[in-house]
């Protein structure tokens, strides 16, 4: 009895463990070993290929440039209600002055201008113009401070006043020409409470001089905006009477007289630079594009834009991309269609000829497949020209007159002919491998049962070849929809694809966000088709050559 219980217990492996656990462990090990073999390649592909694609998709929604370049303005604008039709308050203009001033010193204002120009034409020149003139606003105060006392003219005086004693001592000991890094600026204690704005501006200035310009901060004259900040601090009733450090006398003198200074009316000053600053649309654009992430590029990619109440269509004459997407789809369909039309008979004859002849003819299909894409494109460029081989032959045969040669290149015809030729092997090869598996006796059986040629083909042979057509079509369509080189070279202006527009935005117009968004949409279409291909054919069954 007890023997039987022991035997009905878990079966044991040679080492005494339960067999089930032992097998599980072996399976786990096997899985792990397979994964270890795959891991290097998987990591390689993830880093060199998947990460770039993810980065591109991230770029299509990323919009940090606006809030990074105009931090104060965008913070102020968050509370502004653009619907009232009123301009933002003067404080926002002052914030804008500070942001543009710093951006100009860092040479970032033109980049922001081009970014916002994608959304509202004219902003680019507005920012460039403002960048040039914004310095004048600060100089109003700088001149008055300097007229008041020569003390304010020298950068040394400023650095001694603003910097802590320790830092000033370290600076004095530091050798300008040595390779040792400059002592990092440290503000005088209490300065930030006494003159908050001035300290903030001076810190920005110090950071720029020390880290970007790499100049000696102790000797550098501060930006004009530091004077504006000092004026603002003094106007806000800063209490400088308790201060005893360097420049205390001059500071007290300035406090006493600052009330009589000529002051800058920021909205008016900006109006002086360009009247567009009083245009509410400019402010709305800045406000709409303040968030760090935006759907703006994607909306742009489908001819829409962000309006006050959500997305709206762009005006008719600015619509471009939907048409281009549709054209790309239609031309890819035409190319796929002509590939089916030309590929089906060839695949059929290859599958039905005796092996020796079929192999010979297969070379005619494989040779173009192996020949460089550029060779084939240049061959078509040469053949399709107005003075090219095809037109010459047609003229010689008298089919067309010498003065009315056919325009076969730099239009849609050129793209369709060349791409059909280039992609035809991708249709023939999958069709061939499917047709090879259809027994020819089926057709004979159908005919012997009384089917006509057509019925036998259409009801018996064709349905069996449909998987091949599906595989070939999806492959050709996927390849066609993303083609760049051939349309670029033989497509002219009417035969180009969405890829050409993406390349244009990357290398010429530098609107990378829009390029990324257009690429994202194209990628989504292709991945959808890829998924369909996987379902129909299975990626494992992709065959190359024969």
């Amino acid at each position: 009895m007890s023997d039987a219980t022991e035997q009905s217990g878990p079966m044991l492996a040679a080492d005494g463990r339960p067999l089930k656990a032992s097998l599980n462990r072996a399976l786990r090990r096997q899985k792990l070993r397979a994964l270890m073999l795959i891991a290097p390649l998987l990591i390689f592909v993830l880093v060199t290929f998947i990460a770039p694609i993810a980065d591109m998709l991230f770029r299509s929604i990323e919009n940090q440039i606006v809030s990074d370049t105009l931090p104060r303005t965008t913070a102020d604008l968050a509370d502004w209600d653009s619907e009232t039709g009123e301009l933002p308050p003067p404080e926002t203009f002052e914030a804008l002055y500070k942001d543009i001033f710093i951006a100009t010193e860092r040479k970032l204002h033109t980049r922001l201008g081009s970014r916002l120009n994608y959304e509202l034409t004219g902003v680019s020149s507005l920012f460039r113009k403002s960048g040039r003139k914004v310095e004048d606003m600060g100089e109003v105060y700088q001149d008055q401070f300097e007229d008041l006392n020569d003390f304010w003219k020298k950068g040394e005086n400023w650095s001694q006043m603003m910097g802590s004693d320790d830092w000033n001592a370290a600076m004095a000991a530091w050798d300008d020409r040595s390779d040792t890094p400059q002592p990092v600026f440290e503000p005088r204690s209490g300065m930030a409470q006494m003159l908050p704005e001035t300290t903030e501006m001076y810190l920005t200035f110090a950071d720029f001089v020390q880290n970007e310009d790499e100049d000696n901060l102790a000797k550098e004259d501060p930006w004009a905006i530091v004077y504006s900040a000092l004026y603002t601090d003094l106007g806000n009733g800063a209490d400088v009477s308790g201060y005893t450090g360097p420049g205390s006398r001059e500071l007290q003198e300035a406090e006493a007289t600052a009330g009589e200074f000529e002051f800058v009316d920021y909205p008016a000053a900006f109006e002086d630079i360009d009247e567009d600053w009083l245009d509410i649309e400019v402010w709305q654009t800045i406000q709409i594009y303040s968030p760090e992430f935006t759907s703006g590029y994607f909306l742009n990619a489908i001819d829409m834009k962000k309006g006050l109440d959500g997305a709206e269509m762009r005006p008719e004459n600015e619509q471009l991309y939907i048409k281009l997407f549709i054209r790309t789809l239609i031309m890819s369909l035409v190319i796929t269609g002509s590939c089916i039309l030309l590929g089906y008979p060839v695949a059929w004859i290859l599958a039905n000829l005796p092996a020796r002849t079929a192999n010979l003819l297969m070379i005619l299909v494989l040779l173009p497949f192996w020949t460089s894409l550029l060779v084939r494109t240049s061959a078509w460029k040469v053949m399709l020209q107005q003075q090219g081989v095809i037109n010459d032959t047609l003229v010689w045969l008298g089919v067309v007159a010498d003065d009315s040669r056919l325009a076969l290149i730099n239009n849609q015809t050129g793209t369709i002919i060349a791409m059909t030729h280039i992609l035809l092997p991708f249709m023939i090869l999958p069709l061939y491998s499917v047709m090879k598996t259809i027994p020819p006796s089926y057709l004979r059986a159908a005919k012997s049962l009384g089917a006509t040629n057509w019925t036998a083909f259409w009801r018996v042979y064709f349905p069996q070849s449909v998987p091949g057509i599906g595989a070939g079509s999806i492959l050709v369509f996927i390849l066609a929809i993303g083609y760049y080189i051939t349309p670029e070279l033989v497509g002219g202006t009417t035969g180009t694809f969405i890829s050409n527009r993406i390349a244009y935005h990357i290398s010429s117009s530098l609107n990378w966000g829009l390029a990324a968004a257009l690429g994202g949409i194209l990628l989504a279409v292709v991945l959808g088709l890829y998924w369909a291909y996987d379902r129909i054919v299975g990626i494992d069954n992709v065959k190359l050559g024969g």
Partner: protein
Amino acid sequence: MAALTPISRKPVSFYVPTVAAGGAVAGMFVGTAQGSTLLGIVGGALIMAAAAYVLTQIIKAETPGRWGLAILCAVAGFALGGLPAGLIGAAFGWFFGWFSFWLYEGRYRAYLAPYLTPGQVLWHYTFRVICGAILVFLITPIIVVMPLSFNAQDFFTFTPEMLRFDPAGYSIKHYEDFFTNSDWQGALANSVKIAPAATLLSVSFGTLAAIGLSQAHVPFRRAIMAILISPMIVPLIISAAGMYFFYSRIGLQGTYLGVVLAHAALGIPFVIITVTATLVGFDNSLTRAAANMGANPVTTFFRVQMPLILPGVISGGLFAFITSFDEVVVVLFVGSAGQKTLPWQMFTGLREQISPTILAVATILVIISIGLLTVVELLRRRSERLRGMSPG
């Protein structure tokens, strides 16, 4: 293939009109080229009908008859339009001589099933002519480029000298330009540096992973396969854009390393596909036998597994090589002027200053592709033969 149907001679009323119809088509082209289409059609039909009748009913001897017609037509063509027309005439003459006897003797029926109706026979041959035309369409661009690359002029079409077969119309100056011009030589050097490095990377990683993927139990096999194949599926312009953005961020844009990594990624799917296909026929008991006899995994891999899957690895490597060697979109964005490759130079050549040197380069590349294609085909047949899958 043995003859299926006994053949018999056909009546004059069948083949003479058929040959006449063919003659009319040929005559139409000749006539148009000479200025009168109608005259060409009528003349072609009459001449060829007469020729067919004379050949089959009066001369009767096939070989001399066909030669005679070919020579006659060649002379006529030469008189009309010089050497090129003479050659075309000879081709026409040879064809019609063959065509007349082919129809007269009923040879066209020999290899077809005896029960086919005349309509089915006609369709059979029409279908072959259509397929032939498509194959001509496939191969013509490659064929046309070769003679054009020997053009003595800087034109992209056949000059009258070339058509007359005048040696003065031909020269190898475009080839000389390719071998002496520093732009082209620099581009060639870059291609030769980048492609093997990229191939090496994708083959070594790809083969390991393919072996891993063909094990019996691989978790997430489908997902991993989808990721590894994706460089082949994602449009090149998107890969190029993504790599441009990302490689600029990490400082690889405009470096050899960047281009090599990018090309290796693009070549990986081809290696995976070909090597997994070879591994399908691999007998895993061989590795177990090797292990059983005391070989460690590394020895087993190099001495047992590798020699057997080598053909697949080599053809995968050739695919990866040609991918990198032909690739232009990604290098256009990821590379800088210092990494200009041969396809890039061709691309700028085609887009900006069109120079016939491109045709010389194209011819050289076609010859390289023929070489690669031969190697891959031989390897494929060898591995199929080894596996006993096909008798060829």
